[in-house]
Structure formats: C-alpha cells, structure tokens
C-alpha cells in the first residue's frame, strides 16, 4: 500500500497510567444506578465524579493527558478546558454498551480502572448517512484493512485511557466474563481563543457538580 488515506473521521489515542488509580479510589463512596434496558451500573447522571476531592489525583492525571490530546493531536488554540461530565460504568457479566456518541462535548475519554484479558475492547464505528441509493463495497473486501474498515477495536487495558473526539461513534459488546469491567468516562468542553471576530461566538460554563 502506498496510497494516501485522507480526511480521517477522528483521532484515537491511548495513554498508559504510571500508577494504579484503582488503589487510590474508594468505589463504594459513590452510588450506582441501573438504567432501563441496561445491565450495567452507572453513577448518577449529572454527578461529575472527577470533581470529587477524593478523585483529585486521577483527575489531575486525566487533565494532563487531555491537554496533550488537545495540544499535540488536535492542535487546538484554546483558553481553557474542563470536565463537563464524568461517570463510572461497572459492567458485570452481560453488560454492554450500544453504539453511541457523546453530544454536547468536544473530547471524551475512558480510563479503565479494572479490566481483564477477555473483557470486550472499545469498538469505534464508521458512520454512514445515505440520502440516495448507494453501492455497497463492504462485503467485497478480501481482507481487513484499517483504511476501509467500518469498525476498529481498541483494547480496554487496565490502567490505560482511550481519548477520542466526542462525535466518534463507539460501543462495546457484552462482557462474557464473570469479573466486572470498570471504566471511568468523561466529557470535556473547551473554551477557544476568540481572536477571530468572524467566528460565531461560543463559550461554555463550567458547572460545579
């Protein structure tokens, strides 16, 4: 292959943590809910757990990696960024996450507090939107190729974090192990520099919880 792939849908980056943050966090201090139609436990909506003082160390580390992603992967000019939402997902046996993306957010990430070999990876999905008849090539590829794939999997290795642009579609298949897979996910908003007066303005407010 020597051709040039152009206009990627997004960028995904893996970060390895230097310390085991699970050892620093008391998961029992949070309450968890089961949502209708889901077999997984999740901290309550609108509780931004990374703002909890007990999460200071992991929040600081995640913020450093998010800054690297904004600076070096996306190359953005901005004044500040902040975690607008963060939550813990606990997937027991059978727990899964349907394909979705994160609205009202610029970048997102998932830190794997607890995971084992055999836990499902995080799958990213290419999306299509057809408004006219189309010719399908999907079934005619003779082998997998990242440039033409419609799905790419990234391992959910314990003490690593996957960072991605929030609009990317992702999900994971059911956990087939008895052991829980625990992820801490977050969304971040970015307040950009506003030097260019021709741009329609947007500025986000940081909530306190």
């Amino acid at each position, binding site marked *: 292959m020597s051709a040039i792939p152009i*206009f*990627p849908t*997004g960028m*995904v*980056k893996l970060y390895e943590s230097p310390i085991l943050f699970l050892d620093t966090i008391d998961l029992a201090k949070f309450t968890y809910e089961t949502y209708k139609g889901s077999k997984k436990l999740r901290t309550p909506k609108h509780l931004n757990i990374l703002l909890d003082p007990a999460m200071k160390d992991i929040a600081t580390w995640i913020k450093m990696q998010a800054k690297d992603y904004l600076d070096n992967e996306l190359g*953005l000019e901005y004044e500040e960024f902040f975690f607008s939402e963060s939550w813990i997902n606990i997937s027991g046996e059978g727990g899964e996450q349907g394909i979705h993306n994160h609205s009202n957010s610029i970048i997102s990430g998932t830190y794997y507090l607890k995971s084992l070999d055999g836990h499902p990876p995080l799958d990213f999905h290419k999306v299509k939107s057809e408004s006219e008849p189309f010719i399908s090539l999907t*079934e*005619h590829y003779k082998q997998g190729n990242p440039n033409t794939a419609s799905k790419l999997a990234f391992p959910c290795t314990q003490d690593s974090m996957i960072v991605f642009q929030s609009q990317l579609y992702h999900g994971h298949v059911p956990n087939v192990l008895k052991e829980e897979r625990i992820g801490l996910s977050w969304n971040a908003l970015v307040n950009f520099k506003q030097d260019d007066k021709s741009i329609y303005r947007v500025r986000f407010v940081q909530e306190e919880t």
Partner: protein
Amino acid sequence: MSGVPIFPTGIVKTYNSSTKFSEEFEPKNFSVKKYGGSNKWRSEKFNNVMLHKSLNGLHEWVKTCIDDYLTNELCMKYDEHFISESWLNVNLKGGSQPVHSHPNSIISGTYYVKADEGHPPLEFHRTRPSDTHPFISLSEQYTGQHPNTATSIAFPALQDTMIVWQSPLYHAHGPIQIDEQRISLSWNALVNFAPPSEKDLEDFYRSYTYRIKFVKEDT
C-alpha cells in the same frame, strides 16, 4: 503526534507513467465543446474517449493501475472492472472546476495529458454529514495545518501522472492562472464484484448482499 487517525474518508494514489502518453495524444481525434456556465471545454457526454483506438496504450496502462488500486489499496474481491465513462477536459486561462463528486461510479481517475508548473492542483475536500443539530466548529481553532484535521488536501497535476481515488470523494481545482492550457483525461470505472465465497455464505451478514451487476456500454 502518536494518536491513531481512524476511518479515512478515502484513499488517493498517484501513478507515474513510464510511457509519455502525452506524446501519443492527438487532440484532433476528439471534438470538445464548451458548456454553459463553464470556462472549460469538454468532450461530449456519453463519448467514452478511452475506447478510442488511438488511446489503446493509455487504456491498457490505466487498467493495470485500476487493478493495483482495487487489489492493493482497497483489497477488493472482483471479477472485472471497466471504464464506464471517460472524457477530456481542456482548460484555458480562467477555467476551473467546482467541488463535485462522481455518482454511479466506484473509482475515478485523472491522467494529465498536458500540464505545466503553475497549473492548479487537484484539491480533495472533506465533507461533513449534513448538520441536523447545532454543531461546534473547530475549523478556526487549529494552531496549524495538519492532514488529520485539514478540510482540503491538494495533489499536484503533473504531466504524465494519474491521480486515482474513490468516486464519492469531493474534489475540485481552482482557476487556471497561466496562459498555457491544461488537458486532462478523466474516467469513472465500475466494478463487478466476485460472488460470495463458500465461507462468506456461512456468515449471515456477509451472505446477505443484495445483488448488483453492471453492464459495460459499447461507447
């Protein structure tokens, strides 16, 4: 940067011809006309110029490039491919091509029969899904240009080279700024895919392909 760019919109490949087909090209073999609203001349619609006998050598070379692109870049299983349409564009000073893509085609290409330094490159444009929700724009916030976040990428229009791409990719070129004309031969190709293998037939989703076979026209 060490992140992984995922799901490229398409793949673009430039082929250098060892034969200078520009030297064999005889403009008098083809009639061109000027279309309303355009500064360029083009061969007639539905005249597949690549089938002209004077272009047999170029046609054979293009077919080998299509084989390479389908086999090594897209990794496709196919029975045959053929050029369904091909046409000449003759651009005089001021001639340009607005952003467009090629419907009813699998892959496309442009061979530059006559091009000079100073002629505009072929620009590919990122398209966005139609915005049905309010959206947050990042375009104006980047510190510098990078291919992973760019909204347009240019490939040089060099004489006796050919650019090949997937037909849905949007592309264009700016106005010709110099006095020398630019002549290019563009084509669309259709592909008749291989039937599902025994292994594919065992898989519900891979076997459940709606059938399609394209007819090759004589002109």
